[in-house]
């Protein structure tokens, strides 16, 4: 009897863990860079992400080639020369959200600390943002600064547009249960 109880409990817990996983329904990552001649923005809607609502574990993976620029030539240069997306096709983040509770409804301030990998370089990063738990959705929003030098991304000298040394990244994720 005790044995059965254990297995039932185990199944319940196992089921519970998998039920807490959320995947992306909608996502937009944009970056904005202030430059002398013109500001540069690009938008990416092809991010993949998973969130464990119980533990606060979060991971996302951004395909570099899916950043859409207004100027297609700039997009090519971004991929070919700066992010080298053939060598490093994805930027990733794996971390844990502190201050996140899946039982608190409404907007809460959270901080995700973990490892951010861009251009093949991994750094420890703390990203602040907000989380909103709805009945069957979780919405995460954040804005943070990425310094190009930290990720060994060269800043071109022979360019019409000077790329700023840091870019502002805006994240807007809407999750649904897996």
């Amino acid at each position, binding site marked *: 009897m005790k044995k059965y109880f254990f297995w039932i*409990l185990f199944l319940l817990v196992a089921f519970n863990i998998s039920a807490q996983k959320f995947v992306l329904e909608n996502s937009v990552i944009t970056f904005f860079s202030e430059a002398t001649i013109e500001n540069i923005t690009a938008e990416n809607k092809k991010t*993949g992400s998973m969130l464990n609502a119980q533990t606060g574990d979060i991971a996302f993976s951004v395909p570099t080639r899916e950043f859409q620029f207004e100027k*297609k*030539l700039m997009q090519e240069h971004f991929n070919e020369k700066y992010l080298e997306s053939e060598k490093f096709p994805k930027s*990733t983040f794996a971390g844990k959200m502190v201050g996140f509770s899946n039982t608190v409804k409404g907007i809460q301030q959270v901080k995700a600390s973990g490892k951010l990998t861009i251009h093949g370089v991994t750094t420890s990063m703390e990203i602040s943002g907000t989380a909103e738990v709805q009945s069957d959705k979780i919405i995460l929003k954040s804005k943070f600064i990425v310094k190009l030098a930290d990720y060994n991304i060269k800043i071109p000298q022979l360019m019409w547009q000077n790329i700023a040394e840091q870019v502002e990244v805006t994240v807007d994720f809407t999750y649904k249960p897996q």
Partner: protein
Amino acid sequence: MKKLPLLFLLLILVQTVKGQDDLLNELEKQGPTEGDYTFATFKGSHIINGQSVETRRKGELEFIFSHRFGLINEGAYKLWGLDESVTRLGLEYGLTDRLGFGIGRTSVDKTFDGYVRYKALRQKDKGAPVTVTAMGTVTYKTLPNEDDDPVLASELKAEDRLAYVAQLMIARKFTTKLSLQLNPIFVHRNTVDQDVENNDDLALGFAGRYKITRSIALSAEYTLRLNAKENQPPDYVRYDAVGFGIDIETGGHVFQLIFTNTLGMFERYTVTETYHNFFDGDIHFGFNISRSFQIAGKK
């Protein structure tokens, strides 16, 4: 039996610890997205004299300005050929990322050209191994006009001045630095001197580029004529077009510095009318300069 709850606790613990990296691994397993197409197989729409697989992106207008000077081996008196030059001015526009068209005008034979270029297959990380672009061109030579040669000009009808080109560009970007291209070309000239020239000519172009820095690449091109007539009278001896170049890219410009034995900046001339032999040292210096403008189709 007593040990079981312990084991159970351990299991839960393992579950949580491996959490975040596990999530990332699970994500990575979802494989490549649609955007894994190869880009920048070549820098320009032209490799040297010939065409590349590259089409203009949607809404992008490219202005191409090409120059070929005289022969370098004409020596110092003619400033190694720089005294004379022929020019092509061209525009190419991308209707979509894969379909585009262009027009151009070359001072050689005062020739107009118009073409449509379509990227039929795109190389992908996990997918098509090559990019294939098809291109059709019409050229019209306006030389001679009535002032140049009243007799000949009145004899020539419009169709006599027309030539057509159909070609395929098949290229693979092997590494981030090395790209190679095969280029079967078919040229039809409506009117030729059939004793010494073909109406229909076939050629196979070989081309490649190797990047030596992020913005500089070396390129080479050889156009092998497949059905050239043998034993031609001296005025009609023709050669395979050969070219070597250096590509320099700066922002919206691509500069291509070129050494070649042809004045052809369109296929009719390159394939069928190249009358200098590269290996005799009859080499022209030249350049292609392109400037890209995004004029429509934002995002």
